[in-house]
């Protein structure tokens, strides 16, 4: 009993202490829009003399059309292959010369480019990014080499990776019409048939100031940065963007199942339910928040429900994880993935997962569980401020989904108000078979493993 009392005391104190974390004022963050539609968000953080600089385009694989899957990601690679002034490979050399770290990534929702530099080098990378927003000019030979690199990337991350193959099949099965059904890297056959012209067309369509958001976090002065951005981007003109068709996924009318056979040792199970996401303009909808908290009740810490019962008590799975992200452009899945324990079947694991969910449907969750998770959410708000890169990522990914960075604190406050009854309600309403997709990886022995040999 002593331990329980102690815990409750700590919890109480912690909640009080952390209340400031969400009630923080927002004066360190500044938002501007220049006349061509380019949005600029600056988070001043003067702890260290460094800056994270990001340019995100609101064009990801969900904006691709049939036969050209993967083109958003291919263009991401081509963005390093030269402009009128900066020849192929030179972009990275110039960033390296100022001591910068850089990379880029593509998701279903967006394509993002970033550099991290010492603060006096910020102008240099702003100049480079602004140049490639308008003046990309790669030749066909560069494209032909780089598309080989992208195919190697697909081989590495997907073809030889059974978990990725499983996830790819899960998405393609869960969604019939939504472009979320296609992998970000693209189908191999689409990559084999992609042309430099496809990539150029993508660039011309989407790489416009009115489709971009720049976020700069770190030791900067907002007014100065705004002037620099206006100087380098001011002359770029806005352009009408291609029409995005809604491509709303039709209502699922029953359970879907798919099997994948690939070289592996353990079977894997993925269960994914179609659930709502948070919609811009509807920040008070409790359901997405309740689903976020449900995720954590099941998998938010070492003794959370699924790990405790499935891994530690029943020993039916070796690992289990739950995924849901209420902030995204496209439709969302509430997904549970598990790797079987030795000698346990997928059927047994599925029964255990269903039992854990049914328990919540029938008995709900404990107030103490929710409190624990809310404390973690609050403490993470402090820890996240240790990284300017992480802060910039949070701001811009929220923006890309159609929200304002100003909504982030409101969302966190809203999360703290969710009740056990609301968590139980979304479990009952959404974790049902009508909108469930199940994907199973059946492990196969590798075909030919011969004897090791010397050269």
């Amino acid at each position: 009993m002593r331990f329980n009392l102690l815990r409750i005391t700590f919890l109480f104190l912690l909640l009080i202490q952390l209340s400031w974390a969400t009630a923080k004022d927002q004066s360190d963050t500044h938002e501007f829009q220049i006349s061509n539609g380019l949005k600029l968000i600056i988070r001043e953080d003067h702890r260290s003399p460094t800056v994270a600089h990001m340019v995100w385009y609101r064009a990801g694989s969900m904006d691709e059309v049939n036969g050209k899957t993967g083109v958003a990601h291919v263009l991401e690679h081509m963005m390093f292959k030269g402009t009128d002034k900066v020849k192929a490979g030179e972009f990275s050399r110039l960033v390296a010369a100022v001591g910068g770290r850089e990379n880029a990534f593509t998701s279903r929702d967006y394509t993002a480019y970033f550099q991290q530099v010492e603060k006096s080098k910020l102008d240099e990378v702003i100049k480079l990014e602004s140049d490639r927003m308008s003046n990309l000019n790669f030749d066909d030979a560069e494209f032909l080499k780089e598309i080989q690199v992208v195919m190697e990337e697909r081989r590495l991350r997907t073809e030889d990776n059974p978990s990725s193959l499983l996830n790819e099949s899960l998405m393609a099965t869960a969604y019939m019409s939504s472009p979320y059904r296609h992998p970000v890297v693209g189908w191999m056959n689409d990559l084999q048939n992609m042309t430099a012209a496809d990539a150029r067309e993508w660039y011309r369509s989407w790489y416009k100031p009115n489709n971009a958001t720049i976020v700069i976090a770190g030791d900067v002065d907002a007014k100065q940065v705004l002037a620099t951005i206006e100087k380098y981007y001011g002359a770029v003109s806005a352009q009408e963007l291609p029409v995005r068709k809604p491509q709303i996924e039709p209502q699922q009318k029953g359970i879907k199942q798919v099997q994948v056979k690939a070289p592996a040792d353990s079977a894997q199970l993925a269960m994914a339910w179609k659930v709502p996401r948070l919609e811009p303009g509807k920040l008070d909808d409790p359901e997405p928040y309740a689903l976020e908290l449900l995720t954590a009740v099941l998998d938010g810490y070492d003794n959370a429900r699924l790990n405790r019962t499935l891994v530690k008590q029943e020993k039916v799975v070796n690992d289990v994880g739950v995924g849901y992200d209420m902030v995204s452009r496209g439709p969302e899945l509430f997904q549970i993935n598990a790797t079987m324990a030795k000698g346990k079947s997928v059927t047994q694991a599925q029964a255990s997962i269903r039992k854990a969910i049914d328990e919540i449907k029938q008995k709900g969750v404990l107030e103490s569980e929710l409190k624990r998770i809310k404390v973690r959410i609050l403490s993470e708000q402090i820890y996240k401020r240790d990284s300017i890169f992480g802060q910039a990522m949070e701001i811009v990914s929220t923006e890309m989904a159609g929200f304002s960075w100003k909504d982030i604190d409101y969302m966190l406050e809203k999360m703290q108000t969710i009740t056990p009854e609301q968590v139980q309600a979304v479990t009952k309403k959404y974790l049902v078979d009508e909108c469930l997709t199940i994907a199973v990886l059946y492990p196969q022995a590798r075909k030919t493993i011969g004897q090791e040999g010397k050269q």
Partner: protein
Amino acid sequence: MRVPYKVILIYLLGFGLLDSAQAILPIEKLDTYKGAKAYLVQTKTLPMVDIEVSIDAGDRYDPAGKSGLADMTAGLMNYGARGEKGLLSEAQIADEIADLGANIGLSVGGERAILRIRTLSRKDLRDRAVQLASAMLSTPTYDSNILAREKQRTITSLLEAETKPDYVLERRFKKMIYGTYPLADSPSVKSVGAITVSDLQKFHQQFYRGDRMIVSIVGDVDQAQANEIVQTLLNRIPRSGPAIAPLPQLERSPIEPLAQREVQIPFDSQQAHIAMGMTAVARNNPDYFPLLVGNYVLGGGGFVSRLMSEVREKRGLAYSVFSYFAPGKDTGTFQAGLQTKSDQGSLALEVMSDTIAKFIADGPTSSELAAAKANLVNGYPLRIDNNRKLLDNVSSIVWNDLPLETMEVWAKQVDAVTLNQVSAAFQKYLAMDRMKIVVLGAQNK
């Protein structure tokens, strides 16, 4: 992603620390307690603190036939301990850590085991997190049922890993490069299966003691508070213990005919995976900086290295290609690697070998050297711009017995590197006729 995370990770490891013209927060030496040295960097802007205990209890101390013991000894600390007020079950530990809004994690590498705590700095919360970590570190219960469960989980993960090309490649490469040194052996179903509760208790008793520990703290605490943290953490840890047999020397990779150094592993994957490397230097070697700067040019510098240029940019042979030195406290290795479509294995290996051979023979050009230094020196502040990175730096400095002013002089040491030093160091430590080569899944032979 244009570059896989693996490469980014290596990039960080390879670069280690940097120094700057900016004021560097000093590393303060705390009171030595129970034979454990302790260090602090005070950062006051956020109400949080990061604490690390490094324990000289890494995989290299696994007894013969018990590979995986060091990992299991640390890993099971999460799953039951005797606190000052009684037993703490694995569920209680996990719930309490969560309730405090803290994180406590354990990891084990070749050289050391590491316990890390991240907590809010307010005294009551911080104290409780440190008390929990102290119980885990000093009095784990090592319950036999939990050991059985975790052994089974480890074995299941191992069997899965053995179907993956990168794991099979790395395991074989380690075996070749470490020879008779204990890190040659990777955990196996048999060695993990052989671990008993008394093995864990004995390993813990032997290695988890003050004279084998170093504490590093970064965050919102002053010296007195930091000393208090160290004392709470280690108050039930013994100062010393039984003598431990010294480790064998890691013998330099010998000159051998190719047939003795290269292994082909048949593997039915879409890509061939290639690893090449040899023994190299420890972190405190005086040639560390010439090798660091040189490797930036060869295969460490992200998109601008020679390997990246020859293998990826010019020929489109691979998504990821890299080289790095992994310098430890006592030993170190050099390794290069790539993955390519299985029928391009020979070609890619040839390009990689030629690129490395040419670099060892001729060294960098003066413009390459200047570019490498510019990146390393200008990029210095990015290495120390938050608490977590500072902790990584402090931890590396004190573990490797480097001078406490290492962060202040780092850039100067990079800047002082000459062309001749790079060439001489590469020729002294690397040689193509000593390189171990593992090629997995190539289908052109």
